[in-house]
């Protein structure tokens, strides 16, 4: 996994609450058996005017000029500014994969759905929760100023606005450590193999029916 330390990037404002993972990446693209290549179909149904299917040349499809992602001033954005409950619905990790493949490394919102929030960290992406007021202010600034950039500093847990104002944010120590160092979660857990074995043998004594022959 790629490490995440600091990022200075263009901000894309998506002014809509409860954006679900079906909207982030529609189901027809979930048939892929790969982790990459989802960027061109990020927000597919809002982004294009036609119906998309896997295998199409998405570069030739008609764009919806009203959708914020298609506006010239937001091309190359790396930070997505969103509203409450972003990423609700399906657990599909294809949602963060699509955002990442498009170029988004950091998301800022008043709240995220639990599974989506968790999935971001597994892909070297940083979801930042800020209070509603701070998010409102950011929307106002981004929309008022073309080329608006934010600096995100994960080690210092702060965001620096274009006007120099600093906003702190919270993050779990373990998640931060993994992200800053780009650690492989599985390798980390496997360092605790002994503990897992110990737990397993205790569990076998206490609840033997869970280990009865072939389970599934």
């Amino acid at each position: 996994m790629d490490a995440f330390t600091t990022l200075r990037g263009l901000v894309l404002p998506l002014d809509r609450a409860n954006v679900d993972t079906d909207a982030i990446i529609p189901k027809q693209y979930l048939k892929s058996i790969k982790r990459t290549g989802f960027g061109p179909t990020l927000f597919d149904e809002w982004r294009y005017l036609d119906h998309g299917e896997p295998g199409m040349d998405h570069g030739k499809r008609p764009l919806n000029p009203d959708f914020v992602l298609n506006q010239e001033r937001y091309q190359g954005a790396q930070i997505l500014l969103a509203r409450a409950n972003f990423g609700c619905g399906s657990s599909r990790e294809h949602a963060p994969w699509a955002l990442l493949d498009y170029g988004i490394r950091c998301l800022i919102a008043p709240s995220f759905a639990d599974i989506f929030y968790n999935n971001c960290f597994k892909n070297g992406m940083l979801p930042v929760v800020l209070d509603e007021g701070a998010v409102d202010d950011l929307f106002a600034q981004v929309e008022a100023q073309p080329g608006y950039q934010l600096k995100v500093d994960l080690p210092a847990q702060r965001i620096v606005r274009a006007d120099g104002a600093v906003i702190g944010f919270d993050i779990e120590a373990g998640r931060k450590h993994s992200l800053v160092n780009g650690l492989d979660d599985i390798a980390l857990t496997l360092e605790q193999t002994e503990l897992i074995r110990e737990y397993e043998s205790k569990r076998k004594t206490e609840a033997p029916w869970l280990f009865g022959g072939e389970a599934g």
Partner: protein
Amino acid sequence: MAKQTLYDKLWQQHVVHCAGDGTALIYIDRHLVHEVTSPQAFEGLHLAGRRPWRAASVLAVPDHNVPTTTDSAGIDDPVSRLQVTTLEQNCNHFGITEFGMGDPRQGIVHVIGPEQGVTLPGMTIVCGDSHTSTHGAFGALAFGIGTSEVEHVLATQCLRQRKSKNMRVLLQGELRPLVGAKDVALALIGEIGTAGGTGYALEFAGPAVEAMSMEARMTLCNMAIEGGARAGMIAVDQTTIDYLRGRPFAPASERWELAVANWRELRSDPDAVFDREVALDVSSIAPQVTWGTSPEMVTDIDGAVPDPARQADAGKRESMELALKYMGLEAGTPIKDIALDLVFIGSCTNSRIEDLRAAAEVVKGRKVATSIKQALVVPGSGLVKRQAEAEGLHQVFIDAGFEWRNPGCSMCLAMNADRLQPGERCASTSNRNFEGRQGQGGRTHLVSPAVAAAAAIAGRFDDARVA
């Protein structure tokens, strides 16, 4: 010792190691796998040269992509077919049990787990699917995970998690006739919102829950995620134990007795403290119909499409306006005046035998309205289908003009050939009415099986009692 909630107990029993930052490594007893969210996880194992920690804890089944037409020799769509064959290859390679497409036990992963007794009380159960909350109906801690976590569980049998807060939904009173668990779930989400349960493990309790069958409890827990809660759960009681007795993968003889004695402890202590409590009198709940593009946009079947102008919150007003535009609805329209194009009875929310019985009861002796283009019944598993056929329910549906299909996720998310065309309006017993969920431009109204059945007969929303 401090009084514990059911969730506290399940959590504590599975902690392998507590990290300093409030997270813990927890052990996973059961891992359910389907074809959509697993290929990249298996690929990760291959690339790292890892093997599953405990292959016997895993059960795999293809459900999202499978066709539901009876005469299909296979999957027409080559991309879907590849995903299903990839699951089969991975299961063969790693020694994982799979109920493949020809297996009579094949079905929606959240239907077959309980049906087979693969889902048991006291377990931690995960699946790369948000509706894993369904299994919490058995006094289990069950929640959906992403593909990276699927790989993590395959490789380590564990997950690093932060403990959620506790929330109890107390359901009092008796349900009115023809009002079911689906209506309760939708009414609750209407009350707390789709983010109301975010960060919480949700326990459903109270006399109305105790009176519910396991099928109804599964519907309730299934919808916990639509209220934002990753896990929903219900204490073990005699209903739970009676349901599991004799299931193929449930323990037998002395182990069964030992397990049952243990399972009876799986309930919140009487004085356990919850971080949040919500109480609902279910006797006041009418059949529910969603009118928008989020499950929280819901009202009584006797109600009307709400007016955004009367919403004080600007953000919510805007969401409502967007939803009504997408849904092609005018504020103030009575729900019962909404005409439908299709009806879908199925999904991990409502495709179990009891759901099909409830729908058949309404349909019996009646005909699907001529204005309905298609009315589908998709049983949740091959065994549910077989049971329904043994009871003659299939004939009730077929005689009325419904299509009687093979099991799968089908039109709930339209990954197979079953989908809405742009602008088509569907009464659906599934769980999500998001834009495009059932097909791009499709318009979904979430309802119970009884309301869906009545809608098929009337061609519009109609109270099941008078259909």
